[in-house]
């Protein structure tokens, strides 16, 4: 017998199916449709079971036990056995396809939460549109004997449907402009781009293993925007699952007010790992925002002693001065080196250096004796020695206590992308790059 024979539409909406009476074959009523359990591991998940409520208690019935499904009633087999549970035990099958949501539910003892409870009216991340949206309705299609989830609906049409005003509003819109886009289109998100953010309760009761594979594909700047749009709980949940490198990149892009709050609940070891992956100047700014005790704990957890020392040095400077703005991850070479040596250093150390725009030449006492732009370096022969090609006559540098506004003026005046920062004794401390100043100018 065909399960959907009394159904004309191929597409169904979550909201218009909730409340359909569930009857036994023999005519007794069990309850009304409350929610669905779906196979989150599929790209377009099929419904595994339906949930209903009877005198305040939640039960589920397996999809296979349904004989017929229509808007009027859902009829189930006589021998069907409603099981009492708020969640659905996950069946562990060999995984062939992966979708975004599936990755969130992998783990040994996993119970599936009902679909509506984690998606309907909740905020989700649209990984295609790269933003946070609130779901108005969920779309299903009937496929053979199965019911599959295809889209999350977020537009005006689903909004009106939820208000039960679809009839009158459609009538008015049709009367006013029969070609209105509203009548045929609704903003939907393809299910493969839906990233649900389980709430506190779900996370506790079903122990989800969030791996966030789909989020790792996003640009850190987009990810930062998404984090800013989420509530603190969802934010923490996503952030704490990022690997240290992506976390560091994302953290640099996040609004300043939010940075500290993201780290507040993380343990110092994890934060230290993230900090190590950041530019030292950004890291120092961030540590300045935290309270001293916490900052100390984080710094002492940094494994790389060189980075630890650099950050401590940076912390000594005033936030608003060149010293507070600068990074110490710079390219410094000795005057005796050849072009080839320098290029080799660049190839070897490119990860640790913030910018190669300018190369700084130092003597044994670590004093700045010359500068050389990458551009100039590249146009010379391979055997050229640095001291012959470097600029040593009029070195443009600033002291660490220069106010950032003066740094901006200076860089603007001489059209510099990076400016070296030196101590009173001309010892090279670091450099300020134009993007650090630009940040200040724009905020």
């Amino acid at each position: 017998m065909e399960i959907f024979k009394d159904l004309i539409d191929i597409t169904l909406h979550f909201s218009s199916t909730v409340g359909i009476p569930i009857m036994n074959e023999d005519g007794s009523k069990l309850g009304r449709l409350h929610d669905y359990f779906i196979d989150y591991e599929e790209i377009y998940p099929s419904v595994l079971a339906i949930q209903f409520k009877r005198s305040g208690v939640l039960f589920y019935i397996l999809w296979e036990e349904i004989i017929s499904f229509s808007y009027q009633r859902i009829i189930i087999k006589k021998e069907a056995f409603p099981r009492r549970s708020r969640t659905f035990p996950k069946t562990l099958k060999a995984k062939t396809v992966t979708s975004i949501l599936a990755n969130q539910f992998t783990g040994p003892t996993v119970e599936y939460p009902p679909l509506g409870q984690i998606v309907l009216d909740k905020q989700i991340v649209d990984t295609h549109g790269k933003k946070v949206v609130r779901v108005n309705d969920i779309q299903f299609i009937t496929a053979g004997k199965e019911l599959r989830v295809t889209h999350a609906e977020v537009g005006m049409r689903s909004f009106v449907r939820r208000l039960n005003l679809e009839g009158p509003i459609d009538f008015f819109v049709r009367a006013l402009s029969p070609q209105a886009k509203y009548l045929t289109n609704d903003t939907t998100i393809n299910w493969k781009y839906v990233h649900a953010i389980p709430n506190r309760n779900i996370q506790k009761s079903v122990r989800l293993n969030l791996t966030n594979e789909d989020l790792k594909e996003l640009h850190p700047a987009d990810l930062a925007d998404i984090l800013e749009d989420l509530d603190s709980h969802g934010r923490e949940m996503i952030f704490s699952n990022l690997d240290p490198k992506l976390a560091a990149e994302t953290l640099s892009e996040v609004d300043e007010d939010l940075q500290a709050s993201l780290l507040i609940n993380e343990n110092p070891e994890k934060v230290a790992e993230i900090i190590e992956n950041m530019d030292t100047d950004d890291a120092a700014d961030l540590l300045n925002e935290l309270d001293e005790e916490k900052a100390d704990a984080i710094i002492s957890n940094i494994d790389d002693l060189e980075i630890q020392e650099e950050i401590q040095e940076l912390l000594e400077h005033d936030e608003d001065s060149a010293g507070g703005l600068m990074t110490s991850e710079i390219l410094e070479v000795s005057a005796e080196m050849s072009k080839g040596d320098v290029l080799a250093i660049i190839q070897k150390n490119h990860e640790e250096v913030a910018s190669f725009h300018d190369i700084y030449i130092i003597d044994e006492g670590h004093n700045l004796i010359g500068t050389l732009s990458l551009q100039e370096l590249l146009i010379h022969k391979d055997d050229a020695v640095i001291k012959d090609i470097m600029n040593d006559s009029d070195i443009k540098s600033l002291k660490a206590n220069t106010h950032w506004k003066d740094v901006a003026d200076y860089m603007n005046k001489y059209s510099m992308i990076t400016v070296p920062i030196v101590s009173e004794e001309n010892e090279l401390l670091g450099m300020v790059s134009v993007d650090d100043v630009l940040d200040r100018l724009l905020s």
Partner: protein
Amino acid sequence: MKIENKKKIISPLLIKLTLFLSIVGPGLVTANLDNDAGGIATYSMAGAQTGYRLMWVLIPVTIALIMFQEMSARMGIVSGKGLADLIREKFGLRITFYSLFFLLFADLGNTMAEFAGIASSGEIFGLSRTITVPICAALVWLLVLKSDYKSVERIFIIGCSVFLTYIVSGFIIAPNWHEVARAIATPNLHSITSKDLPIMVGLLGTSITPWMQFYLQSAVVEKGISTKHLWHSKVDVIVGCTLMLIVTFFIMICCAATIYPTGIVVNDAKDAAIALRPIAGQYSSILFGIGLFNASFFAAAILPLAASYYICQGMGWESGVDRSFKEAPHFFTVFTSMIVIGGAMTLIPGIDLFKILLYSQVLNGLLIPIVVLFIINLCNDPDVMGEYTNSPMQNFISYILVMLMLLLNIPTIYFSFH
């Protein structure tokens, strides 16, 4: 290993103080907003018409305010979400839509009241409302959308200190403190007539408003306070509400002592300014005008902003003043229309402002128990609050307060329509 940075120089006490001040804030700002145009008008009128007789009402009102605001603040801290977000997630789109729809109507009336306050304060200085209202509406719009609002907020809060002059004025008047204390400690319930009901509802309605619950929770969320500082936020709410109570007390005392004996019926801002005569003499209306203008302008900026936020949160539309119109069209439409409609209504010749105020007050009165019931329900939901749900005692008191509100509101609405 220790870092020797500049923070070392600052004493631990100062650090504690700055930490405290950075958390203290939302409650204090919200309490300041309570003394808006409608609030000052209601308190002045109550004092002028009934003397000290109804002052006791402020005590249960303040207790209710502290209770409800504490719940909203706690909810914001624990869940990290706005009130409209939580209502949407728990009660679904339909309930959220209709609640917020009526709330928006009530707030449109409230916005109008703020612009009426701006108009009245302008008239004290001899400026016609046809000039002040459009200019201020444009200023409010520009201020919120085009400038750094946070820094302007501080100016408003400092401006609110004008109302502290009521306290000074109160001491200069030196009323019979015995009489005041007796009126508060032993309320004379027999003397309450049906004429007092609108005043009592007014006192309740201007102090506890639905939109302020939404505003406070959003402000707390925006601050990103952690649950470790729950206690600080409680102090913030209590300090803010108590401060509001003191100012309100003195507004009523001043009016009761100076205007009540004369039998003058307070009809406009000029009459209410008499209460400041003991401190400012002939300049009392100027002082009152400045205070009223500051309060009205402040609220006229924040009210439409708060309303646009809760509408967009609840409906799932993009919101935020830093977005472009294209990114968040609903947000800017709601905000702009509230200012334009609210401002324009005060300019319609022959419009009965008082009637509109009454209706919006009635709507407010009806909505606040509903909003409070939402708050109580959410505060008892472990899915939302985790381990920070309400205690049975908190629930008990809250339900009693809701009952009292309904008991007060229903007959008032009945009488005002008959």
